[in-house]
């Protein structure tokens, strides 16, 4: 009798749990409709810089490695076309074993020749072909394909971030034969190994992909297809999600837009949020007086109440986290207790501003000293962050005027020629990795995007040391040292607040995890739609 009861209880529990389990189990079928706030200039990710290329086109391709689609930090590397890899003892040789039986969409087999041709295009582009990513791979001496299923990268020196570089979402693997015929073919055509086949692109309107029935990862993708709709206006994007004409927009919405969607859709919407590996920096032109004086620069950072700023701005803008040189929550992020020791991050803002005033006085800066803050003419979040900065600086007796410059002319007319005293700058990486995130802060002779225009050999040395450090603890220590010098001792650049990524999406969309980068996780092979 007891046994019978037990069986009955187990059966009832199983039956009750079945719908919930079915809800969590990936399900095949359906078309994912998503909105892309930008359009692809060309189809070639090796040369483009916009997520407008990644979001609609990445599902047609694979990369050699990728970041784990389930990892919220977006920094754990897993295999994509490579199933395993090994690193030599001296850290200079990376050997990757490729999956067998991977087919391009035309039915031909993908081999190491294709990987080599793709990476050669990126790292050693032939004459006349521009590669924007060449600079990221200066460490690579050679790419070799000793057999059809092995690729070897030989480095000039060991580099801690190299695996992450191989997981770059921009480095799609193209077909060698096509590249040999025409290096520019991929700018206007699609031919990958990815989970979805190309169906249609109507410029300015939409992009359609359908399931690749011969995808090498058996059982995937779950979706029958996807439709990316290009939509620049954010109100129209919100209306599309709210009207359930689209299920998701992968870049991000503002807090107000999130709230309106949650209010309208209730349980039919799921919200994922994450620190965003993008932020507005403040470039301080060291070639303009008095900003060559580090006391003045330190005063500028000490004036900022970042914690209060975070509380206020996060309600109205896409900024939130107070962080150091690495996005909070990621492997090399600064622990809060250490961050609070840096100038401008002290919890006691009264003390901080008193120190700022003292430094200004010591540097001979009179009360009411005026300068111009040049801002980029993009409303969100440059406008609220600019207003906040000016208000903060006014509180230590500085009189700041804001000049807004049209985005198309901003880099060419303001930052690059150094035509400013203090100006908004921007950094946004495809993955949180110190080599990528700190590169720009090296001396101006090394980094063309060092718009504060300084030379600091100590920083250069620290950058190189951390980049070559193979022990994570040692690397962490060097990054902290770099951070202290950059943000506190020299205050070459000011960090404002980390951007905050908010993705409210249809609750039917499953299998997609937010990361700190809107370039990652766009292959859509793990995404599925609930009933």
């Amino acid at each position, binding site marked *: 009798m007891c046994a019978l009861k037990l069986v009955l209880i187990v059966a009832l529990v199983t039956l009750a749990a079945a719908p919930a389990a079915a809800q969590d189990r990936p399900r095949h079928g359906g078309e994912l409709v998503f909105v892309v706030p930008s359009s692809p200039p060309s189809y070639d990710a090796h040369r483009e810089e916009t997520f407008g290329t990644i979001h609609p086109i990445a599902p047609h391709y694979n990369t050699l490695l990728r970041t784990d689609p389930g990892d919220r930090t977006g920094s754990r590397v897993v295999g994509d076309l490579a199933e395993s890899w090994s690193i030599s003892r001296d850290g200079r040789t990376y050997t990757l074993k490729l999956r067998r039986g991977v087919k391009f969409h035309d039915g031909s087999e993908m081999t190491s020749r294709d990987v080599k041709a793709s990476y050669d295009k990126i790292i050693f582009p032939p004459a006349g072909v521009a590669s924007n990513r060449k600079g990221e791979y200066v460490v690579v001496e050679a790419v070799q394909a000793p057999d059809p299923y092995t690729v070897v990268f030989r480095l000039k020196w060991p580099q801690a971030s190299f695996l992450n570089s191989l997981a770059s979402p921009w480095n799609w693997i193209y077909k060698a034969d096509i590249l040999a015929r025409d290096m520019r073919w991929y700018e206007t055509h699609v031919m990958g190994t990815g989970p979805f086949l190309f169906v249609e692109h109507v410029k*300015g*309107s939409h992009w359609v992909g359908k399931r690749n029935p011969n995808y090498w990862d058996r059982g995937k993708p779950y979706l029958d297809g996807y439709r990316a709709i290009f939509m620049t206006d954010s109100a*129209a994007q919100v209306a599309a999600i709210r009207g359930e004409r689209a299920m998701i927009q992968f870049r991000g919405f503002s807090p107000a837009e999130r709230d309106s969607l949650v209010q309208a859709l209730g349980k039919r919407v799921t919200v994922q949020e994450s620190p965003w590996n993008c932020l507005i920096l403040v470039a301080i032109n060291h070639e303009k007086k008095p900003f060559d004086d580090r006391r003045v620069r330190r005063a500028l950072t000490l004036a900022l109440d970042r914690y209060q700023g975070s509380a206020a701005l996060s309600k109205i803008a896409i900024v939130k986290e107070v962080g150091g040189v690495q996005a909070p929550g990621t492997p090399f992020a600064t622990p809060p207790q250490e961050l609070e020791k840096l100038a401008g991050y002290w919890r006691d803002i009264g003390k901080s501003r008193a120190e700022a005033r003292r430094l200004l006085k010591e540097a001979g800066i009179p009360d009411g000293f005026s300068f111009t803050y040049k801002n980029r003419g993009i409303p969100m979040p440059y406008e609220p962050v600019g207003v906040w900065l000016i208000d903060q600086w006014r509180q230590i007796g500085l009189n700041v005027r804001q000049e807004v410059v049209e985005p*198309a002319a901003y880099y060419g007319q303001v930052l*690059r020629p150094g035509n400013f005293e203090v100006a908004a700058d921007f950094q946004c990486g495809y993955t949180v990795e110190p080599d990528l995130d700190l590169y720009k802060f090296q001396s101006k002779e090394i980094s063309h995007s060092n718009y504060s225009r300084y030379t600091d050999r100590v920083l250069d040395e620290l950058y190189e040391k951390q980049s070559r450090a193979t022990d994570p603890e040692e690397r962490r220590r060097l990054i902290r040292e770099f951070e202290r010098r950059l943000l506190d001792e020299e205050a070459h650049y000011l960090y404002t607040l980390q951007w905050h990524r908010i993705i409210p999406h249809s609750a039917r969309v499953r299998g997609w995890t937010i990361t700190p980068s809107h370039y990652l996780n766009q292959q859509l092979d793990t995404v599925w739609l609930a009933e």
Partner: protein
Amino acid sequence: MLRYIVKRLLLMIPTLLAVAVLVFFLMRVVPGDIVELRFAGESAFASKENLDKERVRLGLDRPVWQQFLSWMGGILRLDFGTSMWTGAPILEEIRLRFALSLQLAIMATLIAVLLAVPLGIVAAIKQDTCVDYAVRIFSIAGLATPSFWLGILFILTLLIVFRWLPPMLYTPFWVSPAQNLAQLIWPALAVGYRYSAVATRMTRSAMLEVLREDYIRTARAKGLWEKLILSRHALKNAMLPVLTVIALEFAFLMGGLVVTEQVFNLNGLGLLFVESVAHRDYTLTQALVLLVAFVFIFVNFLVDLAYAWIDPRIRFR
């Protein structure tokens, strides 16, 4: 008449040429360039070598006069080149959006004419009565209401009240008339209302002026039927300025509906125009300016022909 038409057609050439010269050099004066924007911008790894390669590829390294001559040479062969941003042929970029913009302009014009002409006539006939006041309020409200704002109201109403949104992708009318109209009727109403307001006021004032003319008084004195007076004698003459307003508005709609296109997510010429300027896509912007200039000139030409048809005095002059 034929001589007049040929003369007007020939006059288009220097006008378009002047527009071409103006837009080419204006674009070069505007700060910022496409290479900087697309390949440098926020990138930490952008190098001068790369930017130079791209400038060479796009022909931006050549002296401006050489760029101008090769562009003009292309235009004479009706070859507008390729978009600097997408690399696609410019005619293809325009063709993709032209049908939608043209249809929207036609629909908005139809709505405007269907509203404006009867309302304007009624308001003029019933001057200073309740009907006239109602029409005037209706038209002033139309003038004061931006069409994009009305568009937003339409969308919110459809969304909140009917839990429905117009389709987001354009379907040509011959593929599915229902889908096509379900998408375009809303922007056409939003734009058509503002457009009708202008035309209503113009119709009313032109009718009032004509109704005071001697020949109307003479027709009435002869005992002609009032409806005949209005339709044959008054309306035909009052239509001249109305026609000009309608035509100019129509030409404007072909490239000027930027915000309305954004609100309704329409892949039209207005949005393409703004994006091409924002991207500093010289070739595409130049071609679009030429297209819009051509539409304006051509529509004006048609209006002039219509003038000649409506008013015999113009034909005989």
